């Protein structure tokens, strides 16, 4: 269906384009554009096109980042955000996959629940914040809840769709050979739905990370989102930029080092074509 297809296509686009794009290994090649960007940034700052309060230079940002690293606040905030992300993933992903498979085993139930899951999927993320704050108050519970349910619904939906689109003939073949439900699940459903599930995981973490940062701005007092929002109240644009860069780098690292290899390892290992 749509979301897994789009995600799969985007993911396939990334790996398909891997032939035309610099590979992950050529880090020097990858770093050059950023070096140029930083130089351009420094030049713009030096030229004084914008007042320094609006656009601090790379040096200022690096200095602030260093200070934050030294006094531990950077590590604390990174830890808070990543910790919440980890909790959200660990809690949501297995439950979502398990639930998705259980529901999808009954095809009739899957057909009915799919639009509902789609709806909650469309609803996911920061829209839950006022409700979460009503229920849990301000603080890490609300923030983690929002992110966890973002991840949950997307993975659940993708699992449903993934299992549903496994051709029935595989299931029937396993049953003909005397396989029980356990075999059907492990040897047909799970591998068949895997591309959809893994794409779902990858996308949901993307959405979840964004929801987390936004929620941290509004509803809590630790974490990277809070860091940059708080800095804006004091017009500390250098701290804001340091935080923004940290957020971007963290996501890129997560995607490159964890999610893409996961996708490559699971999907390509089973020789499955995504799109």
């Amino acid at each position, binding site marked *: 269906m749509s979301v897994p297809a789009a995600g799969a296509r985007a993911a396939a686009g990334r790996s398909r*384009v891997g032939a035309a794009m610099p590979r992950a290994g050529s880090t020097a090649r990858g770093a050059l554009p950023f070096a140029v960007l930083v130089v351009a940034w420094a030049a713009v700052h030096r030229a004084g096109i914008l007042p320094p309060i609006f656009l601090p230079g790379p040096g200022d940002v690096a200095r602030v980042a260093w200070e934050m690293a030294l006094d531990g606040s950077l590590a604390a905030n990174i830890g808070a955000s990543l910790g919440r992300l980890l909790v959200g993933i660990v809690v949501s992903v297995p439950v979502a996959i398990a639930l998705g498979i259980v529901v999808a085993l009954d095809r009739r139930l899957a057909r009915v629940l799919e639009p509902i899951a789609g709806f909650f999927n469309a609803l996911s993320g920061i829209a839950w914040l006022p409700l979460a704050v009503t229920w849990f108050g301000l603080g890490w519970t609300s923030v983690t809840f929002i992110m966890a349910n973002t991840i949950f619904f997307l993975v659940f939906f993708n699992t449903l769709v993934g299992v549903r689109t496994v051709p029935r003939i595989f299931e029937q073949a396993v049953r003909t050979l005397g396989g029980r439900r356990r075999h059907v699940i492990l040897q047909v459903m799970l591998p068949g739905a895997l591309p959809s599930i893994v794409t779902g995981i990858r996308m949901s973490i993307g959405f979840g990370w964004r929801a987390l940062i936004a929620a941290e701005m509004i509803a809590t007092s630790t974490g990277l989102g809070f860091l940059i929002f708080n800095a804006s109240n004091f017009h500390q644009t250098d701290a804001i930029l340091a935080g923004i860069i940290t957020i971007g780098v963290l996501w890129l690292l997560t995607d490159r080092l964890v999610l893409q290899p996961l996708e490559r390892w699971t999907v390509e290992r089973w020789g499955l074509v995504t799109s």
Partner: protein
Amino acid sequence: MTRLETAATWAVLLAALLGAWSVAAATLPVPDYVLPSPAAVVASLGDLVVKGILPTYVAESLRRIVTAGLVALVVGVPAGLLLGTSRRVADFAYPILNFFQSVSGIAWLPLMLVWFGMGERTIVVAVNYTVLFPVIFNALLGVRSVPRIYVNALRTLGASRLRIVTDVMLPGALPSIATGLRLGLAYGWRALIAAEMLVGAHGLGFMIFSAQAFHLTARIMLGMAVIGALWLVLDYFVLRPIEQATITRWGLVQR
């Protein structure tokens, strides 16, 4: 399974859900505002429409996201195509675009607050940014993924550079662009809600956020439902069909 069976299962499920919800709302030992009944949520729909609040906020949010989408197309597609035509430029731009796409517009919001203050412009910049980068990025990817042989074929027939762009690059990139637009708007819609909560310049995000301060939980739930429903409508009627159509018509089989 027949249509009738599906509809019947739906009806039963819905009734069961609403029933359980109503019972829970009536019997749980929590203050009223924690779990409003379904009836209260529906009542708040009527209330908000009669008072003109919901249509105004919906119109504002829609206006912002639609303009962001249009801006992303008008600016992002040419930019992505341009960056993608030259291999060296594309290689250079790829990591930068990837990075900027990863940093959602919401993360830039604090900076925008310093630059533009609490107002419409802050929201507009943040949301437009969020939608723009996936479009540029995917346009670039789309162009890069067009097999060289098509370009060369047109070159041998003596086509000008512009012709190559319009006849080969653009159509070849369209499926990717459609996907990028869909993804960008998905991110953008959520970023919009978050921005409206933070900046308070009206909109659905502001509506549910301010409702929380007054414990108007029925309004929160209604607002959430509207947010989800609007995205579903946009996705089902506009974004997905366009994506499907571009793939069907111009989707290239990759080796």
